[in-house]
């Protein structure tokens, strides 16, 4: 560590080694989280209900980010109510422009996208936000793909084509862990269980973190959840041994300041949740994961640079 000529990956590895050595030399910490980072990919521990979440400014771990404009809204949910249009509460859809109750992976793969990355034809959706009962049209969504904290980024593989995942709990009537699903101002990693009052320069976002361990077999499951699990201290449970990217999905709303009365089409704002069907161009997804996540490179950021100016006219 004598010069600045150390690449991020080496720095990360060095930091892990240093922390590990320090723990041994100091004899103070027995088995800290740092010691688990580079070890195997599975153990038998129980998967935590809430994901471990990246905190602080972006840029400390490899990631790629895909910005997707708002596409459309419909009372459809191709995961929970497939083939049953109108059965769901109202959802806002992002990314794939064709998503509806009848969507299949194959139909999605043929459709267009609102995402800045054109190869991201995945379907993303979240319940519609309402302000004093009126629908709020979202600005866009931002999807971050990263290795979950502590996970060796080299272990992360692409989602299988057609994987269905849900983040958060639409039925929640009490605060969930804000790590799982919560509300933030702008790109801040500080989350609340209910929407905070946000500045114009960092308006409201709903942020959901998807589980990052897959059972390796099923693209979906009866409750749409049990085929996925959260990693803990960098490890996936033996029941769900496959490390996939930790997808953190944010929906940006044009909501700041006071005077709002926010609810979701699904009910309480505690019940914020999001759904994802992997309908990426699979080669495009694999390329981003290989170049950015596996190699621990910050391929892109989401910032507040494009938010409303400070002190701007209201």
């Amino acid at each position, binding site marked *: 560590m004598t010069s600045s000529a150390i690449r991020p990956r*080496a720095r990360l590895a060095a930091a892990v*080694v240093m922390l590990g050595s320090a723990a041994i030399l100091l004899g103070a910490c027995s088995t800290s989280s740092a010691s688990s980072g580079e070890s195997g990919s599975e153990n038998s521990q129980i998967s935590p209900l809430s994901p471990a979440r990246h905190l602080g400014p972006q840029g400390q771990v490899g990631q790629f980010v895909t910005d997707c404009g708002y596409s459309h809204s419909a009372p459809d949910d191709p995961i929970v109510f497939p083939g049953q249009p109108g059965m769901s509460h109202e959802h806002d859809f992002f990314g794939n422009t064709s998503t509806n109750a009848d969507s299949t992976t194959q139909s999605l793969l043929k459709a267009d996208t609102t995402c800045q990355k054109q190869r991201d034809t995945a379907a993303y959706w979240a319940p519609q936000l309402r302000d004093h009962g009126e629908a709020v049209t979202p600005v866009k969504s931002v999807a971050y793909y990263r290795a979950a904290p502590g996970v060796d980024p080299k272990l992360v593989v692409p989602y299988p084509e057609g994987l269905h995942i849900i983040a958060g709990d639409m039925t929640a009537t009490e605060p969930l862990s804000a790590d799982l699903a919560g509300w933030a101002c702008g790109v801040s990693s500080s989350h609340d269980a209910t929407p905070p009052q946000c500045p114009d320069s960092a308006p409201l976002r709903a942020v959901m973190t998807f589980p990052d361990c897959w059972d390796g077999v099923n693209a979906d499951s009866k409750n749409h959840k049990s085929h996925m699990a959260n990693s803990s201290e960098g490890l996936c449970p033996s029941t769900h041994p496959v490390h996939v990217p930790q997808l953190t999905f944010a929906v940006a709303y044009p909501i700041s300041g006071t005077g709002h009365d926010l609810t979701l089409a699904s009910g309480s704002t505690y019940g914020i949740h999001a759904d994802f069907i992997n309908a990426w161009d699979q080669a495009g997804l694999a390329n981003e994961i290989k170049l950015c996540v596996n190699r621990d490179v910050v391929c892109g950021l989401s910032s507040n640079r494009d938010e409303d100016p400070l002190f701007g006219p209201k």
Partner: protein
Amino acid sequence: MHKATFKLTFALLATMALLSTACGSDSESGSDSTSSGGDSAAAMTIAVPADQPTIQEAVDAAKPGTLILISPGVYNEDVDVTTDNLTLRGLDRNTVILDGQFKLENGIRVLEANGVVVENMTARNFTSNGFYWTGVEGYRGSYLTAYRNGDYGIYAFDAVNGQLDNSYGSGSPDAGFYIGECYPCNALIDNVVSEFNGLGYSGTNSGGDLFIVNSTFRNNRAGVVPNSGSYELCYPERDTTVVGNIVHDNNSVEAPAIEVALLAQGNGILLPGGVRNLIQRNLVFNHDRTGIGLVPYPEEDASDLAPDAAEWDTPCSETHDVEVPPIPAADCKAVDGLLKGCVVFWNPYENRILDNTISDSGAADLAVGTVDLLGLGVTTDLLRNCFSGNTFATSAPNDLQALAPCDAAGNGGSWDSGALDLLGLLGSPAAAPPEDTYKTTPEPGEQTNMPNAAKAPVTPAPTGPPKVDIEAIALPARPAGT
């Protein structure tokens, strides 16, 4: 206290480094083996499309040291480079064109590949960036044209030992040229033209042997705007040297713009929260607001407090991977009715503004100001910025060179007399243009080719700090017709 934690972390890391030197070399082996040279492989040339039909296929077939020579044509591809020490060269800057058709993201994206040189070509119509290096040591972009790209024209992030020269960036809503998140950056921007962008130059949290020289920034919404903020790593922005540039008419209301550019609109050289920069012998004229302005960047909902001056010398490599705990609630303040959440004021400190010629500015040719909205006792007179040898007509506060000269004591005059109306300026940003404005910005004219592109030998990317004799760079003459 949060800052104490910050320091303690440094101390701990330093101690650990000492204790674990044996492991240190271990962990570094294998990750950096190709950073110096690439001459181990015999030099190889791949012609596109003669040898490989696409640029990406040529890159994939290349080995470190390979020269990829690209023939004229429009290439609808986005190229990822992950091999060290490649040179990608167009045979003709104006007719070797990467075109993203507003569907592809980046023209050329260099990801943690060291020493990659890109020269003599054009990238246009990408939704993100024309040319992009990230996580690299050693990069050079020469004789490049980037226009109508959705974020930045030419963009280096978390990259060191670089050079961008003889290049042109226009029509980006963020910046035409950007070097960010590095300290020391060891980088040089030389003889470039940046116009019709949101910002001519932007660099968040960068500096340290970072030179911007002999270049022109005109007709952007704002000219040269390095800034600090905890929304990205390696804060604050410091030690950037801006010498011998022509900066004029950065008031465009037609250029594309992200919101930050609307806030910075109408300023020539603006340092929002910049620290210890040297701004010398630039020719700056025709700005609606300030010619050279030193202002705070108030960050709402900040991730961290601004580091003390004692921490400004800390290399980015030592803070990059340090976990940033949330700011303790006790240190968080909002400003009633103005600024929400955990507000951090990034103030401009210790900048030296020397020997510039500034004229025709709407608010002031030279300006420095802050507002102590957080009640921390930080006022403009305490920021230790200085001004000497400048030719100018107006300043805020009045008579700024007498008030805060660089080589003598100030005259003790009033800092309140003619002070910058910062709240007024911040409170009246320009109106936002339609989002797709970048797609219709003016086409660049014919740009100068690199000499002898077909035969010129490969010139490697820099391997350390640039050698710039700033004393040899004179104040530029005013261009004809301006």
